[in-house]
């Protein structure tokens, strides 16, 4: 325990072979050329770095079709990219992932504030429009549950 802080580099080099899949180690602050770090949360089962950039870009662009959950999945998949310092991976990759995260956060804030206002405010706030907008009434009006 006391030895650890005193020689962190020793830890890194000695555990290099198994460090390839230790996704969560945030020990390294520099890029050790002997290590390969996987950008995805699946580790060796995931994508390589070049494929990751294409993948992240595609998901980022798709997310603009009103798909914040896609952005969230993108961030989840590339979680190690967010956690590590910015020089660790391909700069494009990090840029797309961070932008996806920001997009998801913004969207989530907007959507949740609207949803909470709607559900907590209720009829007092909206008046009779609330009854027209709430889902179970809409479903009954259009018979959406009848055709299973």
């Amino acid at each position, binding site marked *: 325990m006391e030895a650890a802080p005193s020689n962190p580099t020793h830890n890194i080099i000695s555990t*290099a*072979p*198994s460090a*390839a*899949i230790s996704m969560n180690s945030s020990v390294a602050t520099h890029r050790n050329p*002997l*290590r*390969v770090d996987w950008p*995805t*949360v*699946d*580790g*060796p*089962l*995931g*994508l*390589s770095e070049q*494929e990751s950039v294409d*993948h992240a870009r595609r998901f980022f662009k798709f997310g603009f079709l*009103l*798909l*914040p*959950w*896609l952005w969230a*999945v993108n961030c*989840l*998949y590339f979680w190690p990219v967010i956690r590590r310092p910015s020089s660790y991976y391909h700069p494009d990759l990090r840029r797309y992932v961070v932008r996806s995260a920001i997009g998801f956060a913004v969207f989530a804030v907007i*959507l949740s504030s*609207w*949803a909470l206002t*709607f*559900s907590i405010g*209720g009829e007092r706030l909206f008046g009779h429009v609330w009854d027209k*907008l*709430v*889902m*179970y009434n*809409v*479903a*009954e009006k259009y018979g*959406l*549950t009848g*055709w*299973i």
Partner: protein
Amino acid sequence: MDENSKPRSVLDSLGEEIVRIVTPVSICMLLVVILVSVLNNDSDSSGPSFTSIATVAYNESSSDSNWDKLKGAILNALVFVVVVTAVTFLLVLLFYFRCTKFLKYYMGFSSFLVLGFMGGEICLFLIGKFRIPIDCVTFALSLFNFTVVGVLAVFMSKTAIIITQVYLVVIGVLVAYWFTLLPEWTTWVLLVAMSLYDLAAVLLPGGPLRLLVELAISRDEDIPALVYEARPIINPDSVQRGAVVQRRVWRERRDNDIGSDENLDSRSNLNSTVYSSLESSSGLESLPSIGERTAVDVEDGLVSRSDSELAAPLIQHRINVRMNLQEGPSDDFALEGIGLGSSGAIKLGLGDFIFYSVLVARAAMYDFMTVYACYLAIIAGLGITLMLLAFYQKALPALPVSVLLGVLFYLLTRLLLETFVVQCSINLLMF
């Protein structure tokens, strides 16, 4: 079982692999049981309004005698099995003519229908029941997101493994819930009939699923289907740096005598370690395939497809099975079989998930005691099937053992155990 040269004990890796397949099966069953107990308080009155391929021959009503119900149920099950066989042969034909892209897109479309429409409906049921004050804009947006990401996750193989697994389980839950809307006798006879069909289709030489797997092996292609694949266990010491794990076994190592596709045993010599750096650390090695089939609903003459998938050592491509929804939801059950991936990860077809969950949910409609009994029976059957799989190293049907055990335990519990337990409780002897 091969357990040589593993730094961890066989119990660690083997046990963990089994746990990784039993956990999603259990979660699927649990979710369906919860859905059923929350939504289906009136289990006997759902008959008349529900027509599908499985009730085309006979629609059960509670006033018929037991014998009539049994005959009707057998007729229904027979029709269903015939349709499934026909569609599976159609799938084999399509696969033979290399229409894989068409199959893939169709599967993506059907999973879109399952997630979007069936998922939406079940959410509406829940919202209506609990009077959740959600507005239509939020609901529509969430459903849209959920569906699109689900289709991407199951359709493309490059999303996070956990997301794909979650969505596959969700699809299994939704389709299984739909199956529980069938009348009671029909459900039980259907389960037995499907397990017998599975046995025949995977093991008999002329069976469609076996043909499909042999075709896939001989061509070294993926079969488009819905397969749940457990995360493979990676031995940390043997992953070398810089190597992305290759998940397509066949592409990397072509065996020269692929022509001997009659003899599935020859494949057992194929070393499944395709990964450039991974050694075959896992004891359960490659080959075996999973039979998968999706049954489709025939509604007013519309035939949906069934997709059978015998996925041999394919870990990579989990393509969806499509469903064709018309008036009623079509059932698509993906895999009826179990197999091993090339890294030793176990693959189980989505059809197995669905039928196990249907069995347990039907048991839940009676009482929770039958649920416990059936759950134990199914898990035991799954364990037996896994052992057989490791022993025989080829594609095996996962339905027969579990479903037949489950049905047996259901009948025994309902007829014998319940009276015993009730009498004991009444007389304050136990519980």
